[in-house]
């Protein structure tokens, strides 16, 4: 059905770019793949994918107002990191529905943050969490159950301290170290082909597990950096991988978190540190978090994000996990329950 692009339920800036690039009607968008569209219209791959999905699916879809989009985004929620300053800078936490990349030097805390998110995604809804499951794809051998047990125990203790009413206390019975461990699915991939195989089977896995809210790949760099003798194949595979991750994030409403190494780049005869895997991979994540050292302090910076200002916060890794740097004895601040939660609970109370 031929419809003008301006009537699709997309962001207005995206629609403007499409129209300016000459795509007036949805028929112009047919038979295009996301790479071509993003190159022609000058939009990110995520936006190109959204545009193509909207164009192919719309059958008389009514335009959506900005308010409705905002409410929909708030429903999407985010996963806290337990470092309140970083959560604030991210506007709540690591967002669901998007691809976030964590880069940094070895030992700075990338795997620790991934393990923390794997625990935090499971925080019950009554505490402001997602109560979801996680698929952890380990390519480096850095996944240690011992550490996950440490973090799970600390999270359970924190939530027990926060539990005030009956509903929260009931939720704590299902939020124990054992249940946390049972909701983390681990896959170990020894090389890039096994990683690609796992992602081919991802769609099936996700449809069998509707509670899954987080996919972690730690790391994408490790298997792909070994593919140094055929760089064009590596570029092509990374591009396909990026698209698959974006599609999984938006289509299945999950947060995708990947980790990346840092490499040295020669920039006009000066050595600089930059995330590995090149610019092609750089287009895949919507948000990039850079973890780094500054003398003995650890800093996290948001370096690429359409919705956030570049910001740097200090964090630390303790026995309990990823935390704020000035860790006082107060537990992390409670997430306020959203409007829908409160109305749902009040309905329950009045017995309707």
């Amino acid at each position: 059905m031929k419809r003008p692009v301006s009537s699709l339920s997309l962001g207005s800036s995206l629609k403007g770019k499409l129209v300016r690039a000459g795509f007036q009607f949805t028929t112009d968008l047919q038979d295009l793949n996301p790479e071509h569209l993003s190159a022609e219209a000058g939009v990110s791959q995520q936006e190109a994918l959204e545009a193509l999905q909207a164009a192919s699916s719309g059958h008389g879809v009514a335009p959506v107002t900005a308010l409705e989009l905002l409410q929909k985004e708030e429903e999407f929620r985010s996963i806290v990191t337990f470092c309140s300053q970083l959560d604030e800078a991210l506007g709540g936490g690591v967002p669901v529905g998007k691809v976030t990349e964590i880069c940094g030097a070895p030992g700075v805390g990338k795997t620790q943050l991934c393990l923390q998110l794997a625990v935090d995604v499971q925080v019950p809804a009554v505490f402001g969490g997602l109560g979801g499951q996680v698929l952890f794809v380990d390519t480096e051998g850095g996944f240690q159950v011992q550490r996950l047990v440490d973090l799970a125990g600390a999270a359970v203790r924190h939530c027990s301290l926060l539990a005030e009413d009956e509903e929260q206390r009931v939720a704590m019975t299902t939020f124990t170290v054992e249940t946390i461990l049972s909701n983390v699915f681990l896959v170990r991939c020894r090389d890039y082909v096994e990683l690609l195989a796992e992602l081919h089977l991802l769609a099936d896995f996700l449809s069998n597990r509707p509670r899954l809210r987080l996919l972690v790949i730690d790391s994408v760099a490790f298997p792909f950096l070994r593919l140094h003798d055929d760089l064009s194949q590596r570029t092509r595979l990374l591009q396909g991988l990026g698209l698959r991750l974006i599609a999984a994030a938006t289509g299945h409403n999950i947060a995708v978190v990947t980790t990346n190494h840092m490499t040295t780049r020669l920039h006009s005869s000066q050595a600089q540190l930059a995330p590995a895997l090149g610019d092609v991979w750089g287009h895949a994540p919507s948000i990039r978090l850079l973890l780094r050292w500054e003398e003995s302090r650890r800093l996290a910076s948001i370096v690429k994000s359409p919705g956030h200002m570049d910001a740097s916060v200090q964090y630390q890794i303790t026995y309990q996990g990823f935390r704020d740097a000035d860790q006082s004895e107060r537990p992390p601040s409670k997430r306020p329950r959203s409007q829908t939660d409160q109305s749902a609970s009040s309905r329950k109370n009045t017995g309707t």
Partner: protein
Amino acid sequence: MNWDQLQLKPRIISAIQRAHLKSVREVLVLSEPDLQKMTGLSGPDVQELLHAAATACRTHQPITALQLQRGECRRLESGLRLGTGCPVLDQLLRGGLPVGGVTELAGESGAGKTQLGLQLCLSVQYPVEHGGLSAGALYICTEDPFPIRRLQQLISEQTSLRSDVPPSLIGRLRFSDNIYVEHAADLDSLQVCLSRRAALLLAQGRVRLVVVDSVAALFRCEFRPDDWLERNKQLLTVSSMVHHLSHEFTAPVLCINQVGHTYTHTCLLSSGERLSPALGLAWANQVTVRLMMRRLQATVSRGDQSSALRRLEVVFAPHLARGGRDLAVWREGLRGVLDPVLAPFGPDVAQQEMVLPLRLNR
């Protein structure tokens, strides 16, 4: 590749054979449009092919962390550790070296790295309940000849070091029979040694520890400074081999490394240490656990022996806090010296909720 194993429709199998595709790996690295062109199959058929290839390529189904902790997956031995033979050092390492992954031990010459390597070659031979893996070790020397006399001395003093093990058990172990020594003078011979000798010994179950002493020696002399691209490729090749061996046979690999002064962009990389392991960022990205051994100014004495004090530090590890323990080198081997600051907390530190202090340089 026997395509019939994949249970695909006959027309898909004949299309694959016509396209001369030899393995599932070949199929998985091709894009869907390319596969369609090569085989002439329709979209849904290609999806079915990819799905079957991916299932065949997968080594194991996703398992939960709970199943992993309970030891329900044979392929993934998480949580098993190789003890060092000293309870103080084992406490620092929360049990010892992890079995799946590459541990690096870096330090200046004379710090005691080879000593720890030898001690691990002995501790691996004890049964699992005494911190070992009931198998031998392969020790690959790249610069100095193997210190055979020191090994004999350590073997003769094992009853003194391992007072936690009944002497009858120690007497039954034929230590020197189970330590295989190889020399590799250059990169090619190291690669051959790893791909053939190491793989065979590990597959036969005769060894469950590989020590490379040292990695730095091979890379420093063979490459000119501007050959760093080629050097990085070789580093990745060696790393990929040791990782593959480690994960395939659930055996720890210990890579001993030298140190050098850091020059540029230290702020992003390290936490202010001046001496850092050789081979740079490319190698650092490849190791799972990084340990450093330093010689301190102090000395300790015990009876008729005296030893310079050393310090073993955890620089990074996925399951360990940063920290260190002092140790001394005696006739019977390395023994940690209990630090008076941490002593009050007792051996069961892991049970307590506390922020482990960051050890500053003395």
